[in-house]
Structures are given as C-alpha cells and as structure tokens.
C-alpha cells in the first residue's frame, strides 16, 4: 500500500559543498562522549565512575524518572572523565576506547519471533530506546505508553544532507529488521516515507511490515513532522514516535547481530569543507576526527547537524547522537559595504525576489554565518512564512503564541504538531531575523512544564 503526498511549499537552500558519494575514511576510535543533553526530557543519573571498564552497550547513565531508560557507551574501553558543569550538572561521560572492541551480547534473534515485551526490553537494555523520539514535544519516548503510530522518514531534504540511497541501501536488511521490531510495539503501524522521484527505484519500497508513503517536494518535505501532519496529524492527547532512519538500521543490527553498533555514514559538507564526502563515525565522536575535511578551524564554524538545525560544537565538540551530518561554514564576521543597498548581490542567496539571485538559476552559494541584518519586530505577514512550511498551520500565529506563552493559543495553532526543526526555514527566510526555532523551543518547554 502506498500513498502519495505532493508538497508545493518549501525551499531547498542552494548552499555549496554537497558531499560526494564516497566514504573517505572511518573515524579513528579515541575518546567518545555520551551527552545526556542530546535527549530532551531525560534527567540523567550516573551509573559509572571514572576508571570503570565498559563494553559497547554497557549502561553509563539512566533516566531518573524512568530508570529503565539507559544510555549506553558506544565503544568499549574505560570511563576517562565525567564532565560536570555548574551545580555539578552532569554534562557528559567521556569513554576512552580500547584497541579491541568488545560488545555486550544482547542475543541475536529475528525480531519476527519476539514479542512486543521482549522487543521493548532489548531496546531499553541496549540503550537504543533513546533513539525513539516522542511527539508532541520531541522528548525521549515513555516506555509505558503505546503510541498511535511510529513514523520514519527514509530521506532527508535538509541542506547538504546525506543521500540515504547511498548511505543506507546496503543496510536494507537491518532497516527491515528494525521496522519489523518497531511494528510490534505499536498498534498503529510503522509509516515509512520514501522520496517520490526514486520511489520504485529505492530499496525502501520493498519494506515489509510498514505502511509506505511517497513524498515529493522541497525541504522540509523530508522532515518527519511535516510528513506526520499529512499522514495523520497529532491531536491533543495523542502520542506518536519517530525514529531517524539510520537509527532504525542500528535497531535492526541490534536484533540481528545482538550488538549495540551505532556506526553511521556521516555526510561532511559545507562551503568550507575540502573534498566534501562521507566518513564513518559513532555518535559522540570528537570533531577532531573529521578535521581532515577542514585543516585549520580558524574562522570556521563546525556544526554537528545541518545548517538549519545543527549545533555549533566547534572543533573540540562531538558528533550528536541524532546527527549524521557535519557542516563546515565560514564565520561571516566581515561587514559588507552597502550590502543591502546594492542593486545586485549575485553572491548572496535570497529566497525572495528582492535580489536577483533567482535569475542565477541553479547556482550554489558559499554561504556564511552572517545574520544579514539586525533583529526587528515581525513585519511580514503570516503568508510570507507559511510559504516555506507545508503544514496546515499558521506559523506566525504559532510563533506569537509561543512568545506570549499562551497555552490555549499554542494548542489551537498546532504546537503538538511541530518541533523547532519544522519551522527552521521560516527562521531562515525571516527578514526580521528572529530566532524562530528558539521561540518555538521555549513554547514547547512551557507546554511540557504546564501540561505535565
């Protein structure tokens, strides 16, 4: 069964530095970090101390509210450091990897033969439960709940995102196993969205135990939130789960091979990346391991994730748990003389026609991190923003409700359906330069606090 979703709204940002379809290297295992802050809604409790020996898959942290949710070490080795911040807040656990990788054995079985209870148990014990994101709010999934359905987007439309046809097609067997496992823990089925133009040619269209949807359109068509809103919008009181597709593969690997292996092909791109391509890495890999792509990080911004939603971690940072992309940008600290007043500005991209970049056709731009203006009150009307949001909501109304902290209004305007990433393009195009994702995030935080 398949349904076709054709999205007209959206915007593909033409940023240069798309990765070539080749794996340049496998990141060396050195020190790997586990960050509790990668998981929204998780309050960490430490399970290890410095010097402890761990295997790949050994728990290092648990959630205080749901102690059965574990975060596990992606490598085997010894706990090198426990990083704490103000008021001894737990920030990260650093694990120094050993030469030989040892894995905790979770037992290899085909997920078809397991019960829902066994699948839950394995996911929780292995630490892969943390891969499940619960909507509304984008928090770590509550094991006591049964979601309406589980949604997986098999592709990403984010700027410079990796091509899953390249990265994941060879892992089809694992993805199938992962989908089968997930289909057991929900009654609503697993919905998988496939890029329309490669639907029949895509490996994913052979998936079983899933409801397939073909999705066509510009970014954010690949965002699972946008797909959910077209497949089955989230209503008040409902919960759905989503899993990034490369972590579905990890779930499959867990069941078929019995080990916790989160190795992923990370797309390294961006205007400042040398020979942009892929590198194999684990979550928590230090950015230094990728430094072959940029040499000196002087004046650069290293982003774990894509340019719209990623985190600027810097050259001493680490790859996020949910990231399979690293973007290298120039810091745009150079003032531009007469910038906005130039009639043409061929080297700057604008989604509007107020510059003539639309006439440049398919040109790709070396974008940097310059804000291109100063913060202002919202001036443009709602339709300016909804032009890049293919969802049945009024983005500006939602954003203003979030600013006001008005729970009723946020509910009415669709706060349950969105995560900040879905409105990232509104933030990109906003001429008033508001931090829209941050506003939505604070709105969601208010909802979590007030509705708990």
């Amino acid at each position, binding site marked *: 069964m398949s349904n076709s979703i054709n999205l007209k709204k959206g915007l593909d940002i033409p*940023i240069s530095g798309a990765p070539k379809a080749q794996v340049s290297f496998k990141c060396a295992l050195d020190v790997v970090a586990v960050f509790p802050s990668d998981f929204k809604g998780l309050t960490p409790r430490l399970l290890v101390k410095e010097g402890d020996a761990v295997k790949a898959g050994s728990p290092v942290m648990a959630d205080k509210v749901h102690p059965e949710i574990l975060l596990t070490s992606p490598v085997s080795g010894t706990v090198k450091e426990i990083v704490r911040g103000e008021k001894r807040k737990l920030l990260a656990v650093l694990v120094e990897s050993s030469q030989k990788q040892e894995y905790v054995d979770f037992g290899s079985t085909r997920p078809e033969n397991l019960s829902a209870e066994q699948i839950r148990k394995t996911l929780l014990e292995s630490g892969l439960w943390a891969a499940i994101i619960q909507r509304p709010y984008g928090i770590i999934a509550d094991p006591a709940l049964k979601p309406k359905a589980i949604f997986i987007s098999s592709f990403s439309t984010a*700027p410079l995102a990796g091509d899953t046809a390249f990265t994941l097609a060879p892992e089809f067997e694992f993805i199938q196993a992962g989908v089968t496992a997930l289909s057991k823990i929900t009654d609503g089925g697993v919905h998988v969205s496939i890029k329309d133009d490669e639907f029949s040619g895509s490996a994913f269209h052979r998936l079983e135990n899933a409801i397939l949807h073909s999705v066509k359109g510009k970014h954010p068509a690949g965002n699972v939130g946008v797909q959910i809103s077209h497949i*089955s*919008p989230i*209503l008040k009181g409902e919960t759905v789960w989503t899993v990034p597709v490369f972590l579905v593969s990890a779930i499959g690997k867990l069941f078929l091979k019995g080990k916790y292996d989160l190795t992923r092909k990370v797309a390294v791109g961006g205007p400042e990346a040398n020979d942009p391509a892929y590198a194999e890495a684990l979550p928590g890999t230090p950015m230094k391991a990728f430094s072959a792509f940029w040499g000196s990080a002087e004046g650069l911004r290293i*982003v774990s994730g894509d340019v*719209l*939603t990623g985190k600027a971690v810097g050259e001493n940072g680490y790859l996020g748990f949910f990231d399979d992309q690293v*973007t290298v*940008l120039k810091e*745009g*600290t150079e*003032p*531009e003389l007469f*910038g*906005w*007043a130039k009639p043409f500005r061929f080297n700057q*991209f*604008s*989604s*509007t*026609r*107020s*510059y003539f*970049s639309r006439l440049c056709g398919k040109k790709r731009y070396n*974008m*940097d*991190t*310059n*804000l*291109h*203006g*100063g*913060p*202002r*009150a*919202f*001036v*443009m*009307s*709602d*339709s*300016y923003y909804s032009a890049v949001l293919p969802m049945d909501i*009024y983005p*500006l*109304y939602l954003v203003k409700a979030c600013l006001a902290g008005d729970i009723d209004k946020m509910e*009415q*305007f669709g706060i349950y359906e969105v995560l900040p990433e879905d409105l*990232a393009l509104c*933030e*990109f*195009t*906003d*001429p*008033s*330069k508001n*931090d*829209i*994702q*941050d506003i939505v995030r604070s709105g969601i935080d208010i909802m979590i606090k007030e509705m708990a």
Partner: protein
Amino acid sequence: MNKIFEKGGKLYFLHSTVDAFETFLHVPGTVTRKGSHVRDSVDLKRIMIIAVLSVVPAALFGMWNVGYQHALAVSGPGAPIDILGNFWYGFLKVLPLYLVAYIVGLAIEFASSQIRHEEVNEGYLMSGMLIPLIVPVDVPLWMLAVAVAFAVIFGKEVFGGTGMNIWNPALLTRAFLFFSYPNHMSGSQSWIALRKGEALLDGATGATPLSMIGDGADALANAGVQYGTSLADMFIGTIPGSVGETSVIAILIGAFILLYTGVASWKIMVSSVIGASLVAWLGNVSGVSDIPVLMHLCLGGFAFGTVFMATDPVTSAQTETGKWIYGFLVGAICIIVRLFNPGYAEGMMLAILLGNTFAPLIDWCVVSRHTARRNKKVKVA
C-alpha cells in the same frame, strides 16, 4: 561600534542612532547565535528600500504635475508641458514636505528605539515617503509636523513600534490633518500650489475631479476649465489632487515593482479592485451615480491607496483568505463613501483605516474557522 556607545558607555543613550547610521552604510559582521546558522540575505532594509523605490515614479510624476497644474491654473489650457521647469517648481514645493515628514518622524522613531533599547526599525522610511504624497501640497508645514508627530507617537510607538501598529501611520497623518484642519484639506484652494500674489485664471478652479463626482458625470466633465477630465487625463495623471495620487501609470509601475519582488500582496490589490468595481457598478445600475466604473478606479486616491497603503503587511490582514476579504472591504468602502458622502468624496483614507481596524477581526474569523475545520476533520477521522 565605538565602546562609548555600548552598554555602560557614556553615550549609551545614543546607541540606536549610531547603530542605525552604521548599519545604513554596511551590513554588520553580526553572526547567527541561535537556530539556523545561515540566513537569507534579505532584511527589512532591503524590503523597505524596494517599497520606497516603488513609490518613486509616482513621486517624480507628482512633482512635475504640481508645476504643471500651477501653470494650467495661472495661464490656462495650453500651458507648456515644460518637463524640467514644472518639475523644478513642484520639487521646491514638495521638498519641504519631505524634510518635515522625515525629520519629525525619524526623530521620534530614533528616540523611541533608544527608549526601548532596540535597533531602529526601517518601517518609517516608507511612511515618510508616502506622507508628502497624500497631503495637499500647500499644507502649512507646522500642521504637517504636528500630524506626523501624532501619527508616529499615537499610531505606532505607543503600540511598540513598527510591526505592532494597528493603523497605517501615513494615513493616520492624513486623517489627523483632515479632522483637525479641515479648511486646509478640502475645497478648491488646497490642491494647486500658487506663488504669493498669484491668482487663479478666470473660471479656473483648484477643485479636484473627485470632488465633483457627487454631481454626476456632467459636472465632472466641466470640473475645471483649465484641465481635462477624460479617462485618459486621469490615467496619465494631469489633474489636480494630492501630489502622488494622480497618475495611474506611475502607480502601476510601482505596483509592478512591488508584485515582482513579492513585497506586497497581489491578493489585496486584486480584491480591492474587485470590491471597488462591484460597488461602482452597482451604483451605476441602481442609478445612484453615473460615473463609469473605470473612472472610479482612476479617480482620487483609490489606485495609490490600493497599491501602496492597503498592502502594508503590518496593518493589513495576515492570512491569505483574510487578504481577499480585507482588500475587497477596502475597495468597496472607498466607493461607498464616494457615492453616499458628497461632502467629502475621498473615501480611500477612511476605507483603509477602517480596513486596518477590521483586519485583526477578519484574521481572527479566518483562523477560528480553520481551527474549527481542523477539529471537525479530526472527529470524523
């Protein structure tokens, strides 16, 4: 920015002003701190400069027309077109209006930004561009200054500045003038700029064609001996009126710029024309008036208001459906005022201000319906 203008510095109270001038010359090297790491190169300065540029054809033509109307009124029909001479005459008449509008308005805007510790919003550049074009060219400058101050302070700053205002500040300026100093705002003396000691030619009138429409098409045809009132005259704009409003051609050039760049909404413009045409046509059919529909669209401030003022993104409706309703309302009310209020025929100012007032309500209805429909769909599913 120099340290003394930063927080804690001696001249911190000037930081908004310094920032405004600094960023006027170059895009600063500010980088993104939160959220999306790259941003669109468009900003409000660019959007506002495009809006301002779109008004330039109407302003230039208006200045020439001020001179031309003066020549007609003094020496009768057949006065030379004299592009440079007439333009210079008009330019000297309009320049003081621009100086007053920008100096008073921007001073208040800068001071308010300072008080709110914000950067100066570019919104007033557009308002200041429009104000001299919609007031009578002979308006005393002190009146204009008072009106601008009123409109900017009570129409905008008290709500929190550009983006938060309910009414279009330029129209509020005009409304203030109109209700406070009606003698200077209508009648036959206001619309033609004479030099000291000059008198109108015998039979010439300063009355605009629009003020004649209450008396029907015949009266309109004989409005003034010195200028023509055919449809072509009105389309080209060689008639008396507010500086910028007369030439439909110049306004259409502006409309093209606004629509091509996407700065203004075509939905508002189209639905405003539909609304006005429909009411004008109904007026014709029911015998209320014998002014042709096309004439209504070219007369007075309708075209200018539709293109440059009704489309203000802050004060117009926000939603797509709302824009259709809002535009229609503006166009329809404009013609209704013209047909049924012969005392003051210019309906566009009140129509847009009324449209601004109703815009939030229109949006509220559209959004509520949308929410209700969503909830219903949900219950069925």
